[in-house]
């Protein structure tokens, strides 16, 4: 049926970039049409290499992604980018300014760049980034780059939806103590010291290598391991401006993907991704039911908590038992 989610998905898969773009809008707005489209696309997804690119603001993530697009296009691979920028917590507005670094591909149908506002989602992504990536995957893009918002130390969500996570640091990232803190660097499969044309880049890379190599074993391949082992990421130097190190970075991404796409790939990575998606959708559904079917109950319970007549744990239990009986809101 024209206008249905399935129809939109079919058009997008058939190569209509306008349909793909409209589909991504529907996914961002979490409409019923998007859900229908994603259901029909999901079986076709799973073959793209999903690459997360994260790191502090101003580290050169967008410029590096632009350089990687050029490299991948040299090998005739279709590339998509999801670039996430933060939404204002006050007005909901956003400046989406990543594609300004990626303008040279206008007219190339096999490069598709889409900005997403985070819309209140924390963790460095937008709430629907995983679904948007799945749609691009199903539409035949060989590589999907997910560029996170500029991150601090603990926005690590991208690692749960990417096959390969690249952390981009600038030479002035700080001393070796920054490299042994828990957080962002721990989820890296590859660490790039970008702006290698700047002074201090070699020293920063050496410092990172020294500290990251302390991980006592490469990442666990045992799917039943009780405690995940720390990763031992490769540290590369690159300069997105003059292009040095970029071919090596793309090659390293390919090696990582080949190793992980093989049969012995830790099952937990795939399960973790599935879990992140299902938990996200479940939370949305519960919130939806809470504020539609059970709006009056919810408001009453919140009043009681605000007045300290009811503690928040008891309130959550009350709501959970009400919602649990009716998770679909029907």
């Amino acid at each position, binding site marked *: 049926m024209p206008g249905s989610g399935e129809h939109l998905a079919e058009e997008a898969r058939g190569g209509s970039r306008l349909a793909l773009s*409209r589909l991504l809008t529907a996914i961002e707005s979490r409409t019923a049409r998007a859900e229908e489209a994603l259901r029909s696309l999901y079986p076709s997804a799973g073959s793209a290499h999903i690459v997360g690119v994260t790191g502090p603001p101003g580290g050169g993530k967008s410029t590096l992604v632009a350089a990687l697009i050029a490299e991948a296009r040299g090998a005739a691979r279709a590339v998509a980018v999801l670039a996430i920028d933060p939404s204002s917590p006050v007005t909901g507005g956003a*400046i989406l*300014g990543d594609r300004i670094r990626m303008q040279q591909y206008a007219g190339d149908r096999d490069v598709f760049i889409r*900005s997403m506002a985070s819309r209140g989602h924390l963790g460095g992504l937008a709430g629907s980034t995983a679904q948007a990536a799945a749609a691009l995957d199903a539409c035949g893009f060989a590589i999907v780059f997910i560029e996170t918002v500029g991150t601090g130390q603990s926005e690590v969500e991208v690692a749960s939806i990417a096959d390969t996570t690249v952390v981009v640091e600038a030479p002035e990232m700080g001393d070796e103590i920054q490299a042994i803190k828990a957080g962002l660097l721990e989820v890296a499969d590859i660490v790039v010291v970008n702006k290698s044309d700047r002074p201090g880049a070699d020293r920063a890379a050496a410092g990172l290598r020294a500290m990251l190599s302390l991980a006592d074993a490469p990442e666990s391949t045992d799917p039943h391991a009780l405690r995940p082992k720390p990763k031992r990421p490769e540290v590369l130097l690159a300069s997105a401006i003059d292009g040095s190190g970029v071919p090596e970075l793309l090659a390293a991404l390919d090696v990582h993907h080949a190793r992980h796409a093989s049969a012995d790939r830790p099952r937990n990575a795939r399960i973790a991704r599935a879990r992140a998606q299902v938990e996200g959708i479940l939370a949305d559904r519960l919130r939806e039911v809470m504020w539609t079917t059970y709006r009056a109950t919810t408001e009453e319970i919140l009043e009681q908590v605000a007045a300290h007549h009811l503690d928040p744990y008891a309130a959550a239990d009350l709501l959970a038992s009400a919602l649990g009986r009716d998770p679909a809101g029907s």
Partner: protein
Amino acid sequence: MTDRPLKVLIAKPGLDGHDRGAKVLARGLRDEGFEVVYTGLRQTPEMVVTAALQEDVDVVGLSILSGAHMTLLPRICELLREEGMADVLVTAGGIIPDEDIPALKQVGVAEVFGPGTSIAQVAAFMREHAPQRAE
């Protein structure tokens, strides 16, 4: 969750190097609650239309001070129609002589905002005239 923010592309087609106005507008529209895709200076019509298509924007706001508006703006409107985006609201701002405005409106520019226009006026116009799309 269908009450999505309005999405606006702010671009500067052509060869002038003055982007202060476009940046101030982008920032002002952000504060109006819009999602603003900012693509900056020296855009060809093809770049503007590719960005509008891939971002699925509701509005394209073009800032131009070079005098080439009678060439660039009709071309952008034409390309938008070719790509199936005839419903996108196109507005222009910058230095555009009054006598050119009727011709620009003829080719599909919905409104031309001259110097002195307030951000609130621009935002109100965009809210009122952005296409109503089925979710």
